[in-house]
Structure formats: structure tokens, C-alpha cells
């Protein structure tokens, strides 16, 4: 990067900060207000900063995109509603959609007019995403979909869903999948909140009952859906690992900083357990910092990001467990925030790839170890063991 570019970037940052100071909401806002904010953000040139201008992006570079993201951390932007679209579906459409699809979907996505959700996971296809059983069957010029998806974020707000469906059961599982955009407002689509172990509904289940999809809403080739899914999941992993370093540890009641205020450090055993938590937190924090610096320097972390995700999942559970043990009986009664932290903690190890999946990725792709013998790559899907066996 030249000195001139650096100066420009500093100026860009300063402008962004001024705009955000004037426009960013002071508090958490609802979905309609959030959509209106996204439109203003887009008008101001801060939505889709690095996305191609011809489809509605701002046509700038990753440098500006990152600069804005850094500044934006100091504000409460209502981006959660749009995160799936911005982080996964949009990039997948840019990569693999037709020009017509890009024209149709990217600008409304960037302006917050249309919210997207991602429809991959099923009750029988979690870690093993390619085992999806939701069927899309040819029907005249189009398709008809039936089946069930699960763990879907933002489905209650979504206009569109990026749907991975099985279109051929006679071929091995990776080879019979196709990707679609599905209209979430169709009456055959039922969105039901899924209560998780915290007692709250952070996700949804989706049921498809003969939902028609025109062939023009197919993304990528027929039976080429797996490669589109891989592209999409790559974007997901990137956005998770980019988020790892800044994930709101400061708001976690089980974090080192929160916990040191909550417990009596006069007890040397408590003190040493806090030291252990500090060590583990710092070890991961510095690893994330290093990955971020590498990314900034143009070194793509690749599968090493899975190591960071695995470590984050382990730390999240470790600290919630430790904190409740240190605080004792109080922590498990009266809606204590640590009780919630303990209930929520396993989510980090289960969402975005289990710890086992992460260890496999690190072993295979980072260390280059020989693969597990696979029985599922050659068998026709209809003959494969899938999901839970009766």
C-alpha cells in the first residue's frame, strides 16, 4: 500500500465515523427501522462497499470495506437482520448467479429491502450438509419443493431463502443437489420458531409443503448445488472467523474481565482459576489478532480459521463452566446471567460446524493428514445411511 493510499484511507475512516456519529441508531431497533437505516447506509455509500458497482455495490476495495468495519465496531449497527444475506447469500449470488439474478437480488439486499435466510441444515443433515433430504422435483418448467429445514436464522423476517435441495437420489449424495432461491412468503412455507436449550428461540424450523420455484430462481446448474453450497459455506466460515476476534466478550458475564469483578480473589484457588481463564483467553485473542494481521497483509488464513473457531467453542464452554463453578449455587438460580451463559455456551460448539468437524478440517487441510475412508461418496443417495436410523 502506498503512503497516498494510506492517507486516503485515514480520510475515508474519518468520514465514515462522522456519518455514523450522525446516523447510527443509539439503541437496538426493530426490523422496519433497520431496513430504513440500511437504505440510508446504502445511499451514503457504506453498504456493499467492496461489491461491484454494476449490481448495486459501491465498487471500492477490501481496504475500504475493512476500514469501515473497524470504525463501525464502535456503533450499534442493526446489521444482524441482514447478516446472512450480506455474509453468505449475496456473495454466493455474485459468485454463481446469472447477471439477471444479480440484477434482481443484490441491490434490494444491500438496501435492506429484502432479507435473506440460508436453508441448508436439516434434522438429518447437520454436520453432513450434503445429506439433505428436502426434495425439489421437476414440475413443468419449474420445480416443486417438499421437506424440512432447521437452525435457520432470520427466517421470520426473510423474503428469500437460499435453499439446498435434492434433485436426484440415484446418484451419490454430493452429485444430486441443486441450489435455489425460494420465496419465503409463499403459503406452502411454514416458519416455526425453534426453542433452544436456553428456553429462547434464536432459530427457526422451516417446513416446505409443495412450494413451487421457477427454474429462473435456480442458482448454478442442475445437480451442481454442492459446489454452490461450498462457496457459500466458505463465505460463512470467513465471516465467522473474522468475527471471532471481536465477538462481544466484554458482554459475556463469564469472560475474564466480568468474572474478576464477580468473585473473591482472596482465595488462592479462585485466583489461580482466573489466571487459567486469562491465559486461555489471551492465547486465543492473540491468535485471532495474528490471523487478522495476516489477512490484512494479504495472507489468507484458509482452514486455519477452523482452529480459531474450535478454540473459541472450547473457550466459551470452559469459561461458562468455570464461572458457574466459581460463583456456585447463586449462578444456577434466579435467572442469573451465568446460568444463561452456561445454557448458551454449547451453541458455539454446535453451530457453524461441530468441534469434530473443525478438528477434521484442521487435520485434513492444515496438517495434510490422509483422509478418513469414505463410504458415502460412491453409493447412490437412496442406498445411503442418512440421519437417524429407525
Amino acid at each position, binding site marked *: 500500500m502506498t503512503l497516498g493510499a494510506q492517507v486516503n484511507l485515514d480520510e475515508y475512516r474519518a468520514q465514515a465515523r462522522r456519518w455514523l456519529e450522525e446516523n447510527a441508531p443509539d439503541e437496538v431497533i426493530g426490523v422496519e427501522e433497520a431496513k430504513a437505516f440500511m437504505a440510508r447506509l446504502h445511499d451514503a455509500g457504506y453498504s456493499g462497499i467492496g461489491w461491484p458497482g454494476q449490481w448495486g455495490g459501491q465498487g471500492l476495495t477490501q481496504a475500504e470495506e475493512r476500514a469501515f468495519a473497524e470504525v463501525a465496531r464502535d456503533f450499534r449497527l442493526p446489521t444482524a437482520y441482514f447478516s446472512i444475506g450480506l455474509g453468505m447469500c449475496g456473495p454466493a449470488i455474485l459468485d454463481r448467479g446469472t447477471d439477471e439474478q444479480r440484477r434482481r437480488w443484490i441491490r434490494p439486499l444491500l438496501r435492506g429491502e429484502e432479507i435473506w435466510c440460508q436453508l441448508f441444515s436439516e434434522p438429518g443433515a*447437520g454436520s453432513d450438509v450434503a445429506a439433505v433430504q428436502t426434495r425439489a422435483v421437476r414440475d413443468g418448467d419449474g420445480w416443486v419443493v417438499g421437506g424440512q429445514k432447521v437452525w435457520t436464522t432470520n427466517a421470520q423476517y426473510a423474503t428469500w431463502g437460499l435453499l439446498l435441495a435434492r434433485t436426484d437420489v440415484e446418484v451419490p449424495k454430493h452429485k444430486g443437489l441443486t441450489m435455489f432461491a425460494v420465496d419465503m412468503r409463499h403459503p406452502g412455507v411454514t416458519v416455526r420458531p425453534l426453542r433452544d*436449550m436456553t428456553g429462547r428461540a434464536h432459530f427457526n424450523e422451516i417446513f416446505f409443503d409443495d412450494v413451487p420455484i421457477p427454474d429462473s430462481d435456480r442458482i448454478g446448474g442442475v445437480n451442481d448445488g454442492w459446489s454452490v453450497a461450498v462457496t457459500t459455506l466458505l463465505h460463512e466460515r470467513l465471516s465467522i472467523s473474522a468475527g471471532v476476534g471481536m465477538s462481544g466478550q466484554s458482554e459475556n458475564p463469564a469472560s475474564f474481565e466480568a468474572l474478576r469483578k464477580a468473585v473473591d480473589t482472596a482465595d488462592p*484457588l479462585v485466583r489461580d482459576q482466573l489466571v487459567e481463564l486469562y491465559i486461555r483467553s489471551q492465547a486465543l485473542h492473540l491468535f485471532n489478532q495474528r490471523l487478522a494481521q495476516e489477512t490484512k497483509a494479504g495472507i489468507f488464513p484458509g482452514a486455519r480459521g477452523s482452529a480459531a473457531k474450535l478454540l473459541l467453542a472450547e473457550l466459551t464452554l470452559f469459561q461458562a463452566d468455570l464461572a458457574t463453578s466459581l460463583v456456585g449455587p447463586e*449462578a444456577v*438460580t434466579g435467572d442469573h446471567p451465568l446460568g444463561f451463559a452456561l445454557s448458551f455456551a454449547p451453541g458455539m460448539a454446535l453451530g457453524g460446524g461441530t468441534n469434530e468437524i473443525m478438528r477434521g478440517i484442521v487435520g485434513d487441510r492444515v496438517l495434510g493428514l490422509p483422509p478418513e475412508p469414505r*463410504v458415502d461418496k460412491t453409493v447412490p443417495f437412496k442406498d445411503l445411511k442418512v440421519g437417524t*436410523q429407525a
Partner: protein
Amino acid sequence: MNLLLSQEQRDLRAAVRSFLDGNSRPREGYDPAVYRRLGGELGLSGLIVPEEYGGAGAGYAELAVVLEETGAALLPGPFLATVFATIALTRVPDKELLTAIAEGRLVATVAQPPRDEDVRLEGDRIAGTLGRVLGGMEADVLVVPAASGDEIVMAAVELDDPGVSRTELATLDITRGQAGVRLDGARARVLGPRPREGILDRMCVALAAEQLGVMRAALEAIVAYAKVRAAFGRLIGSYQGVKFKLADMHCQVEQAESIVRYAAWAADESPGELPKAAALAQAYVGRACFEVARDHLLLHGGIGFTWEHDAHLYYKRAKADEVMLGPPRVHRTRLADLLEL
């Protein structure tokens, strides 16, 4: 030292297990009808009540067998609370209360105030606040140590006394309620001076037996799932990543069972070994139970994170149990003291 179950104890286990299968509904809370049958048909309410008070006069070995099963079935309600109160009452025997418990007519609980002087007795009136009382909403009677003049006595308070106010607490473990209890001049009966020792140790053993049941059942659940759930075309139990973790969990259960049998034997037969055995039981089994429950939840994958699946009930029970008699370090420190380290 005897670490094995007798034929009678195995029969007891089978009877309790078979009864709880279908009658323990963890999400539905305390069901007095189920408790009546537990006390009546199975005679569990009076299990460790001495025969002179109408109980079965059984030992901790039998109690451990029962609590392992109530733990495994996540039996909801104040069963453990009444067991704790019974333990206290066997150390300051009270005919009225023990008989009522043995007959299954009385739900009782016991609580320890943060400091001994926090609950005070003047004449027959008692006052003080207890932040968390196990089964406090369901119990008829509370057994509590109280400061009376210069000494500490054990007192019994009827919880429907107008001088008692109770507040239901939210609990992480939804299968078992707790209450905040305020004693504001309620009528109390002195049972006797507080025993020097022996109550907490036996509560530790009882709790460890329940924890053993919780971890055993959690392991069984995930082993069963690993035999029917497929991923990448294979049953997940065939992957070493899953299998080896399950093997480690089995090792924890084996060790926990050995410790529980030993601690129960010590409570029955070797009181001199009891304090160390009890502290060991809480220090090892409490932690192992949570670790097994945690890993059993994680290995279930996404479905284990749902409210509808029971995995989180075990996970939360395990954590609530782990800290019930104080944070783990309390038991470790006690163990260090007893070992004269």
C-alpha cells in the same frame, strides 16, 4: 470394604428403575401422586428412617441405589430435599417428623444459612432469611440450624405458618424447584443441639449417588444415539472421534460408581473413613458428572441444543448438582484438610 451390590440391592434397583420408567416426567414438575406411590408401593420415603420410627432402617448403600435411579430418571420434585431432611433428622431424631416422612405424609427440606447467626430462635419463634431452599415451595417442613442464645440448635418450621413467606425462584435445572424463604417470627420446634458432624458428609454421599445416576443415564443416552445416528454414510459411534470420547466417559462412570459405593459403604460401616470419602465423592463425582453430561450434549450435535430434547436437562441438573453443596473448591479444600496436607 464392599463395593458390590447384594442381590437384594439389585432387586431394589430393578424395582425403582421399572417404576420410574414412565412415572418420572422431568418436565412436568412435582407430581404428588407419583411420590405417594414411591413412598407407598416402593417404601422409599422411609428407606433410611430407623425401624423404631416406622422406616425400613436401610443403609446408605440402599439409599445410593435409589438415588442413582432417581438421578438417572431426572425425577422432578422434592425427593432429594426430603432425603436431605431425613439425613438431618436421623442425627437429631424426631419421632413425629420421621414417622410422617416414613409414612410418606410429609415433604421436608433442610437449609443452611450463609452464617450460623443468620437464623435466630427466640423462645419458639424463628427469624431469618434463606436465599435458596431446595424444594422450598413443595416442602411442608423446613429443618434448619438456628442460633439460640449461645448455642446452635436444629429447629423444625412448618412452612405454611403465617410467619413464613416463600418466593419461588427461577432455576437453571427446571426439574427441581427452589424457593427463597423468609422466616419472620414463625413458630419453630427445637429438635436438639446441632450435631457436630455427620449431616453434611451424608448429604455429600447422597448427592454423589444422584450424580452417578445422572451421568450414567447421560452416557447411555448418547451411546444409544451413536448407534442409530448416521453422518457421512456411517453410524457416528463408528468414528473414533466419537467412540474414544465415549470410552473416556465410560471410564469416568466406572470410577464414579466405585467412589459412590465406597462412600456409601463408609457411611454404613466405617464412620471414621466417611468424611474423606464424602469429600472425595463430591470432588470427583460432581465434576465428572458435569463433564459427562456436557459431552453427551455436545455429541448429540444440533438436536442436543434444542429445548425439546432432554440433553439439556441432564446438563443443567449436573451443573446444579455440582454446586449444590458449595462450589467444587469447598470439597477439595475439605479433602486437603482431612488429608492433613
